[in-house]
């Protein structure tokens, strides 16, 4: 993601990947109070804050898992920005219109904004991919899941009672079909415009 020097807060990204409870507790203790304060000042409560924090951490995990997120900025500002934007989206959804919020001065550097932007784009893409995957026929979905969990194509072919050549070809065609579905989705062009 970035060529800059890795920040020592990369440990929190690794903690999400390794499900390291000690560091995850530290994330809550060090960074979450600020998020809760912000959400409570802006028409939210503690239970909404808990949901926003959990969803944001899961988004970061998914990005780290797929794209090897390499943090070169402090986790604090990056995480706060993501939670804040998620909460604003939530408010917009709830009220159905633009919201006026109680803005507070939080020092956020350009690098953190860039990382937060990339995570948001990743999340939008991820959601679209999942949505489009669900539009595939059952045969494609099953075959794709099997080819990635079983790994050996020969074994997949055996399980499905088909030839190795058929399974290989079908797999590439199914992902090809998914590629077309994604390319034709209006949301995909909106995401591409952000890049």
């Amino acid at each position: 993601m970035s060529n800059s020097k890795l920040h020592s807060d990369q440990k929190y990204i690794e903690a999400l990947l390794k499900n390291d409870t000690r560091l995850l507790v530290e994330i809550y203790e060090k960074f979450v109070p600020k998020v809760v304060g912000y959400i409570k000042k802006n028409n939210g409560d503690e239970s909404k804050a808990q949901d926003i924090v959990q969803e944001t951490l899961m988004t970061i995990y998914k990005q780290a898992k797929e794209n090897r997120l390499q943090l070169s900025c402090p986790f604090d500002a990056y995480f706060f920005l993501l939670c804040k934007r998620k909460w604003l989206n939530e408010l917009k959804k709830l009220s159905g219109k633009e919201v006026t919020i109680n803005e507070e001065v939080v020092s956020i550097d350009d690098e953190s904004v860039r990382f937060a932007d990339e995570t948001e784009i990743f999340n939008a893409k991820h959601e679209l991919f999942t949505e489009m995957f669900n539009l595939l026929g059952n045969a494609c979905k099953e075959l794709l899941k099997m080819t990635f969990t079983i790994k050996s194509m020969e074994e997949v072919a055996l399980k499905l009672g088909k030839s190795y050549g058929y399974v290989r070809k079908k797999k590439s065609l199914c992902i090809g079909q998914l590629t077309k579905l994604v390319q034709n989705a209006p949301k995909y062009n909106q995401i591409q415009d952000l890049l």
Partner: protein
Amino acid sequence: MTPEEKYDLFDRYCTQQLTINDQKRLDRLVKEDTAFAKEFRLYQDLHLHIEVSSTSEKEQKALENNLKHIGDNFFSKRKEEVKQSHKDITKQPKVIRIPRWTYAIAASVAIIIGVYFLTPSDPVYKDFVDIPELSLTERSGGEVYIKKAEEAFNERKYDVAADNLFALLQKDINNSEYQFYYGISLLELNRYPEAKSVFQKLYQGDSLFKYKALWFEALAELKQKKYSRCRILLKKLPKTAEDYQNAQKLLDKL
């Protein structure tokens, strides 16, 4: 190139099965045709997306559950703190001048209280509970959670102890010692349903803590003043159990 050929080429790239000639062909097409290049990049993204989603389902669920647990703990602690600070605010010290005649009333009240405490009353949790010391370090190496769990537990900081024991259980879910002390921590934090389920699981097993867990489950009922449930559990303790005599004493009082 037909779509079949194109996707086959993409797929062989993603699974690292391209020949040198195929690789050259792919490189050339990516350079010359922007639409082809875009589709190729998207194919790779999707290939990776499906691979990660299919292979890390369990891992993702485990993280989700762990975050939920940590979040629940964190937010319930915050609630407690807020309650406490409200209490502190309302507890403003007041200076009251006491008239002399009130001393006589105070003396009478003292006598009444004295009589009350000398008469038999319901047994209470703190008279029966005897929390053992937690000592894991020497046996299990220098893991950071072990040290923290042990220190916090022995200093009666049960919230910290519970967090660290929970972390240890994530790595060693069947460790009965962690489970037992985790249960006691939960009980001390008045998290009864969770404590009960930990003790029940231990009682159903065959570890050294089987009957200790039953005794503590009974104490959990006592702490909640659920005397009949406490009695039922106490009666299940066999004579060979370490806490059998204590259980009999408690049964006499109930």
